[in-house]
């Protein structure tokens, strides 16, 4: 297992054992800023290396997936899991959107195996963050006059993760590999170390979710474990269809199979306040995130390799 994943385990164990270990909120913020910028910068540098013509079809396909996933998830959450409308819509938004931390663990997983991935992945990551949240709000509220869309879209598009990813992409693209060179020690060389610390904190948070997990019963756990697999499969198929490499296909599957725990909760809390925030967050952070980093990522990689062999 990748050592960064052990840090997650350490956090979970410390949290469940009620250790007094804490990562200060300011450090959590610093680490997420660094990871988001690093992912963006790396992507931007890669994008600058090659012509980006021919990217439009891929962008279209991925956006379409972003809008479609929550529509598939909503009926499952509403009728199979048996949630109220607002809660089902919120869960659909969380799982339709993406988790940057899961993506980062995926990047580390590929890196440890020396598997390259396509330059546009960080761009696709950004594209997948937003649509599901918009669809989720629509599912909960319908298209009534009461929703203040102006304010909401502002909130969503200018959320910190979108801003840092897009900003990093733009700076990396504008500066190129040479320009970014002096920034590499902080953003690239230390990436895995920062990810390890971040996962330690994620483990502590996931442990703190375990209490609400117990009170929610089995459905949520089942949903959190079972939903990622078909979602990731859809991501993998689309990845192959739009011509991504094995690495890229794996990452797109990871994105599709991951659930948001930053952007979606923040937006849903404001836009759909009647949805119970603990519900989606517990599933996303307490079940799906650990499932993905332990089981999902290797599985999606196998799937991507298998699909590629099938094509080749």
């Amino acid at each position: 297992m990748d050592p960064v994943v052990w840090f997650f385990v350490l956090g979970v164990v410390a949290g469940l054992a009620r250790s007094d270990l804490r990562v200060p909120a300011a450090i959590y913020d610093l680490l997420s800023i660094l990871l988001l910028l690093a992912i963006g910068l790396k992507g931007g540098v890669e994008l600058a290396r090659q012509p980006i013509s021919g990217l439009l079809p891929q962008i279209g396909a991925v956006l379409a997936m972003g809008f479609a996933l929550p529509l598939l998830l909503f009926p499952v959450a509403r009728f199979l899991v048996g949630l109220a409308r607002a809660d089902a819509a919120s869960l659909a938004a969380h799982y339709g959107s993406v988790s940057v931390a899961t993506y980062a663990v995926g990047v580390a997983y590929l890196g440890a195996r020396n598997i390259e991935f396509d330059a546009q992945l960080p761009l696709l990551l950004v594209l997948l963050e937003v649509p599901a949240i918009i669809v989720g709000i629509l599912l909960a509220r319908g298209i009534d006059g009461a929703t203040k869309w102006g304010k909401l879209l502002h909130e969503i598009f200018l959320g910190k993760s979108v801003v840092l990813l897009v900003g990093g992409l733009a700076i990396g693209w504008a500066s190129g590999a040479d320009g970014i060179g002096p920034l590499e020690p902080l953003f690239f060389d230390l990436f895995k170390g920062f990810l390890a610390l971040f996962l330690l904190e994620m483990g502590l948070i996931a442990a703190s979710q375990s209490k609400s997990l117990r009170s929610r019963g089995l459905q949520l756990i089942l949903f959190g474990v079972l939903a990622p697999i078909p979602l990731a499969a859809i991501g993998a198929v689309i990845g192959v269809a739009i011509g991504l490499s094995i690495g890229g296909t794996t990452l797109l599957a990871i994105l599709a199979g991951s659930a948001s725990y930053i952007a979606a909760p923040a937006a849903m809390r404001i836009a759909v306040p009647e949805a119970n925030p603990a519900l989606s967050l517990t599933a996303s952070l307490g079940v799906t995130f650990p499932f993905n980093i332990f089981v999902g990522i290797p599985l999606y990689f196998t799937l991507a390799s298998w699909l590629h062999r099938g094509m080749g």
Partner: protein
Amino acid sequence: MHQETRKLLTIVTESALETELCDELTRLGAGGYTVTDARGRGSRGVRDAGWASSGNIRIEVICDARVADRIAAHLRDRYYSDYAMILYLSDVSVLRPEKF
């Protein structure tokens, strides 16, 4: 020193509401407000500020009784059913009554 009585309205709620609430307070006639970060427990469970969205804020507003009532009514209608929030009032003496 000349002193006058005003209402001190204290609100404890989710930190996600800070921007929105502060704008509303101004619109409802508060001459100012003071915010501190907090954590706590209530009917909606523990809010331990362990990370980003799970903390509380504690807002204090000094104002006259009329504005205090208006703010309280607004918060009740708009937030009580969906958000972790408590609200309480007390009397305080202020030195420069024209400020509040």
